[in-house]
């Protein structure tokens, strides 16, 4: 299963969930699979997608939050699994596209190509709802479970790398304001001006 195919399955099953995408190929594939207002594309801050998702899940506990992370990115911020395992937001689903390489930077091996197991890491940090999937059918099945069974979820999806051909907007404030409006927190209405 390619990451783009897998991303299409996530978008199809997302409903009105917020989706946070890690920078580079995960964000490009999310844009290609289905640009939607409730997508938040990061263009930097490698490693922080799951942290952004955690903060959003805490602020909006009734909103489903899906994070599309990469194996290299999550390896840069493994502490995030400990914080998620501690705070346990039921509405957070972290999906890790594990292609065992740094796909955006030229295909260098990540540690998952040499034995690192990110599902085991999530479990070791107190995240109970976890899975590793390798086929579209397995991914669909676990996405269905994640819609009904409380999280936090950590889903490692083994995917094949393909080169994205499109990219989302580079207007960061546009990305933010479109996203916030889509999840019912329009920036102009609840932010700015005197407290």
């Amino acid at each position: 299963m390619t990451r783009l195919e897998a991303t299409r399955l996530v978008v199809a099953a997302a409903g009105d969930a917020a989706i946070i995408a890690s920078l580079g190929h995960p964000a490009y594939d999310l844009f290609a699979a289905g640009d939607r207002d409730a997508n938040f594309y990061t263009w930097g801050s490698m490693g922080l997608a799951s942290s952004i998702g955690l903060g959003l899940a805490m602020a909006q506990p009734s909103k489903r939050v899906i994070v599309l992370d990469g194996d290299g990115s999550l390896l840069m911020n493994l502490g995030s699994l400990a914080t998620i395992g501690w705070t346990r937001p039921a509405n957070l689903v972290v999906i890790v596209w594990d292609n065992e390489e740094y796909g955006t930077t030229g295909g260098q091996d990540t540690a998952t190509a040499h034995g690192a197991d990110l599902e085991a890491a999530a479990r070791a940090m107190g995240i109970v709802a976890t899975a590793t999937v390798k086929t579209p059918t397995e991914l669909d099945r676990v996405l269905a479970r994640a819609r009904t069974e409380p999280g936090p979820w950590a889903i490692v999806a083994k995917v094949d790398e393909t080169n994205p051909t499109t990219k989302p907007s580079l207007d960061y404030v546009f990305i933010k304001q479109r996203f916030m409006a889509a999840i019912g927190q329009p920036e102009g209405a609840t932010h700015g001006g005197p407290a």
Partner: protein
Amino acid sequence: MTVEPRWASGVCAGLHAAGSRHVVYVPDNPLSHVLRILRESFRDITTTLATREEEAFGIAAGLYLGGARPTVMLQSSGLGNSINALTSLLVPYQIPALIVISMRGGDSEWNAAQVPMGRAVPAICDAIGVPHVTVESPEATADLVSRAGRTAFAARIPGVCLLPRRLTVPSPPGAA
């Protein structure tokens, strides 16, 4: 009975007055006073421990996207762990946070490992375009923290309050 330092009560009152109900932090010794007061007297504020300062800024960004007004608390050494989050997430997306930094490396510092970053904090903030104010007295703390927070959330840019050791550990100078 514990007598709470006035500066610490001021930090709590200031961030609360700025509308912040979420504090994400990596602890240090002076900030433990703030955390205790928050837990005892500000029950409407949620505190979240991050494993690393960079992670704290990621969580804060997510909180803001969800409509909250986040505060991040850290020691000056942790700014070094935060710069990429600030410069590639909060600043370009215009995501604000009130940032409270407990300073090391200045007056009466005994640990050389704290000195370079402690000295560099204001220059780093200037270099990345993040405004900062230094709290100089316990009496002024609540007002300065509140103003920094209100400015941050109104102008949509992170705003830093620096807490020097002469404020947080008046005498004698202590270890972290």
